[in-house]
């Protein structure tokens, strides 16, 4: 004991600190999470289930799945391509490209929506042309997808780049010497090495895509049953003072968050590494 106490605190201080930290986390993180479910079930199971079976709720769920289903694969493709480019090759402008990939993290979600309104909105650059050809981007699905793609842009690339950098290119170079072509190198050599990191990136990308609010809110126009994603539907219900229904829909998103955190811990366990902060 006497020896150990040199680099640790007395048991009393230690337990006080643990208590304080647990208190902060409980009050600040667990209580809100608990509150989502408590508010949702305040008026019983029936109201809860009813709120989820509403047509507007169902169409919001569908739209959310659709938007994530399109934008996540797009950013997955970019993530793979960008990671391959910056980890297998050295070229001029590489550092600049790396910092551009992080750029969307510094952009407010509202601005991520605004840029598309400026390009495709009724008074935007291509607005009149789009109106002439009867193409709807803003206040419609394409705008929602574009906004989602913008905010989730870096997630996959950001997980893959450090991972592939640390693994080096020796195995790929060996495969080239043995006569393998690009695709088979990717599928048979690279992909097995990066599968956990890839899943990790897709997981975070998907969570953000399904939960995105600010960017989508700017481009959606809040047309009930048409352009409301699940987070927007929650907002509409809340602003109409339908609190139980709003929180019932919010439980789906909270559940998504919990599943994401659970899978994230599991993937960290499998891959034996933890991602750095900064998402």
């Amino acid at each position, binding site marked *: 004991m006497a020896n150990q106490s040199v680099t640790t605190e007395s048991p009393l201080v230690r337990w006080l600190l643990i208590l304080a930290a647990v208190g902060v986390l409980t009050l600040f993180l667990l209580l809100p999470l608990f509150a989502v479910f408590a508010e949702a079930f305040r008026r019983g199971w029936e109201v809860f289930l009813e709120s989820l079976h509403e047509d507007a709720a169902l169409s919001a769920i569908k739209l959310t799945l659709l938007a994530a289903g399109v934008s996540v694969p797009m950013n997955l493709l970019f993530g793979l391509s960008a990671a391959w480019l910056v980890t297998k090759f050295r070229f001029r402008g590489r550092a600049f490209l790396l910092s551009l990939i992080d750029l969307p993290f510094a952009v*407010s979600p509202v601005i991520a929506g605004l840029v598309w309104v400026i390009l495709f909105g009724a008074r935007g650059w291509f607005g009149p042309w789009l109106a002439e050809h009867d193409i709807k981007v803003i206040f419609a699905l394409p705008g929602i997808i574009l906004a989602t793609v913008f905010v989730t842009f870096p997630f996959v690339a950001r997980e893959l780049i450090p991972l592939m950098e640390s693994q080096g290119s020796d195995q790929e170079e060996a495969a080239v010497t043995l006569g393998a072509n690009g695709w088979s190198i990717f599928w048979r050599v690279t992909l097995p090495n990066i599968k956990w990191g890839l899943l990790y990136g897709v997981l975070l990308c998907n969570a953000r895509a399904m939960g995105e609010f600010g960017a989508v809110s700017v481009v959606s126009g809040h047309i009930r049953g048409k352009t409301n994603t699940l987070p927007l539907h929650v907002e509409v219900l809340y602003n109409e003072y339908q609190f139980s229904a709003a929180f019932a829909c*919010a439980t789906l998103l909270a559940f998504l968050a919990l599943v994401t955190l659970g899978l994230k811990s599991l993937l960290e366990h499998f891959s034996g590494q933890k991602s750095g*902060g900064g998402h």
Partner: protein
Amino acid sequence: MSKRRVIPGYGLTMGFSVAYLSLIILIPLAALFLTAAGLGIAEWWSILTSPRVLAAARLTFGASAAAAGVSVVFGMLVTWVLVRYRFPGKRLLDAMVDLPFALPTAVAGITLTQIYAPNGWIGGYLASFGIKAAYNSVGVFIALTFIGFPFVVRTLQPVMEDMGKEVEEAAATLGAGRWTVFWRVIFPLLVPALITGFTLAFARAIGEYGSVIFISGNLPMKTEILPLLIVVQLEQFKYEAAAVIASGMLIVSFALLFLINLLQRRLDWQNR
């Protein structure tokens, strides 16, 4: 450059990555800056310095700085306990730190409002002391602290984990008390990570929208944040004014991003 590229796919990945980056990020952002610049510098400046924008900027930057500061204090406590001590439920709490990353912001927004409103669980308690924690700047601060907190923990955690105990032992051998060791030996080693965590939390808070607008009350000149002001301009189809406010925010954000990259490089170097 002169070395021949052994691995295939350079042209394909270069072409696709640059095209995708340009179409999704660079061209849209350029359009925003061009729209803002189209008004001319005098008009640009007069919008940015109009009373309503200035009031929103004061609230946004002030509440973001306060929230990031409190996140640093709480984050240091929580990280210390998670890294140094063993106790039941530790792994669960560690995983829960990421909750604000994972929880959609709209859900965080309505839930925090419900809790901190004058008739809410915590808000009711605070109200009995005459403290109003929702529909004012305090509410904005609470939401931004919730959002920024994980950035500090996740920046600090690897640094604390990699910190050897040798220096602490050496300090103790030289007769330093535990408190002295913490402030004179451990804390200085954490400062770069703390600054990085603060900057990350601050940068995120500036642009935050979903978790704030429910709890803030959104009164013009009083509890409007900058992102909300952009939305207000858009609802009136004032694209140019929205672009001007956004361009001002982006200049600050990009400067912060640059600072974060510098700090991160220093941190990586220190951890090596």
